């Protein structure tokens, strides 16, 4: 799949912001006054920046409000509704802490759960697609939830929780890659099933429908990534999990180490999210003699 920068930025930043709001909402950290402004502001800013990026890949962003209507059937619509609900519900809790030094745990709790559900909905947009076997797997929601929570825990300064989550994130990243590598073959889709001619012998593309590019090939038959995939996986794992873990172990309560850990984690997650898209193979590639 084509790794569009707008979607990579959207899923990574909104996941990070929502992860932070989960911890703020659940009351694991209860900053007040200016600190609350900064922390909640960061959570809201990251989430809203992510959502803003997501509109960049739309053909008609001016109609984006229509996307709130189909929550009964569409995960993309559910994500929009849940994100708006989460940010609205958590607002009174944030306001209470900012202006009156008083948490509103009810709003915080429900808002935090809505934040988690929003991350889940984002993941399900990809995990629901049977056409992309690598995504259509339980590791996709696990990966999105864990990466959001891990980044959130680092940003919230919860070093111990962040350490535990970093370890789990490393495991899930590795599982998503290793199990993901096998999914396409496991589903059994081949050029034989795609053309229905597999029972008659070996099918091979003789001539594509056109000599040039098209939307399908650009969007869904993206093959640039595979050359450096292994190196990028290692770099992503080191950036997203190993280095932040070491930093938090050396100086768990230093602001500088937390900021450095958060930035390195973000860089690692961006690399891994790029791989998430670039390595994913869509079954339509079969019709073009590709995977």
């Amino acid at each position, binding site marked *: 799949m084509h790794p569009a920068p707008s979607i990579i930025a959207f899923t990574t930043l909104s996941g990070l912001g929502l992860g932070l709001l989960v911890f703020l909402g659940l009351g694991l950290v209860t900053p007040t006054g200016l600190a609350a402004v900064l922390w909640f502001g960061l959570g809201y800013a990251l989430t809203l920046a992510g959502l803003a990026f997501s509109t960049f890949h739309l053909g008609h962003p001016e*109609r984006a409000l*229509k*996307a709130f209507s189909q929550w009964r059937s569409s995960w993309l619509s559910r994500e929009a509704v849940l994100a708006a609900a989460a940010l609205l519900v958590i607002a009174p809790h944030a306001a209470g802490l900012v202006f009156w030094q008083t948490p509103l745990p009810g709003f915080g709790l429900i808002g935090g759960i809505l934040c988690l559900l929003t991350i889940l909905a984002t993941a399900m947009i990809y995990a629901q*697609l049977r056409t992309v076997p690598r995504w259509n797997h339980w590791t996709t929601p696990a990966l999105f939830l864990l990466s959001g929570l891990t980044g959130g825990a680092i940003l919230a300064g919860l070093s111990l929780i962040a350490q535990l989550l970093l370890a789990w994130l490393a495991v899930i990243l590795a599982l998503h890659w290793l199990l993901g590598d096998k999914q396409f073959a496991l589903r059994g889709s081949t050029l034989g*099933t*795609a*053309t229905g001619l597999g029972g008659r012998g070996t099918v091979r593309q003789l001539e594509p*429908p056109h000599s040039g590019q098209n939307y399908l090939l650009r969007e*869904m038959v993206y093959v640039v990534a595979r050359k450096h995939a292994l190196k990028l996986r290692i770099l992503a794992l080191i950036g997203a999990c190993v280095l932040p873990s070491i930093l938090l172990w050396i100086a768990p309560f230093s602001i500088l180490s937390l900021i450095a850990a958060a930035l390195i984690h973000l860089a690692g997650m961006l690399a891994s999210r790029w791989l998430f898209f670039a390595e994913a193979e869509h079954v*339509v590639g079969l019709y073009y003699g590709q995977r």
Partner: protein
Amino acid sequence: MTTLPQSTERKLGLVIDLDTCVGCHACVVSCKGWNTENYGAPLSDVDPYGADPVGTFLNRVHSYEVTPDDGVNAFTVHMPKSCLHCDDAPCVTVCPTGASFKRAEDGIVLVNEQDCIGCGLCAWACPYGAREMDALAGVMKKCTLCVDRIYNENLPEEDRVPSCVRTCPAGARHFGDLGDETSAVSQLVADRGGMDLMPEQGTKPVNKYLPPRLRDALPAAPVTAKTAEPGTEGLDGFLGWIDRTLTRF
């Protein structure tokens, strides 16, 4: 709503005969023409006369080579591919705006272009590559089964079929109600063993493909470069004398 109808009154669709299709791409051209001049945003081309032309098409013809397991009598198959108007269309349910829908009355899958935000998720959800985002209009385009022809009483009756079907010079494309067992297209599917593309995707396509008929098998392996090695065994007369004389040198 982008939920699918429980069932549809009719299942209008295409039956494409892979035995008959000659791969002339006339259906591709007529589809592009009709759907550019009529309903919805035109099917645009970007850089059409330049070095890297790209355009939107609702129907494309692939060509494949099938080599049977015994290695002889390989054959070519031309496969026109457009929206299969699936009963369980994954492109419809993923749509966040309700722009994508499947009609309860005839099963046609359509896009309401006024509601489409151009997110592209429906194209990702389709295993067949049936949906293409128009680069200029920014909305998703797909086969409408020529909904603006098949019910159009301003057209002569013989033209009230999809443009690709009307155009096909080989008669490889058939249009009808696949939900009605007695219809001509359903009979064709039953007689010829019509098949689904990628059934493992669980989309339950309405469109069916008729597999190529079995070819006659040649009694002996055909003469190919490999079997035509030069040999002189059994030569007699003048040629045999030349062969023997030259061999002695």
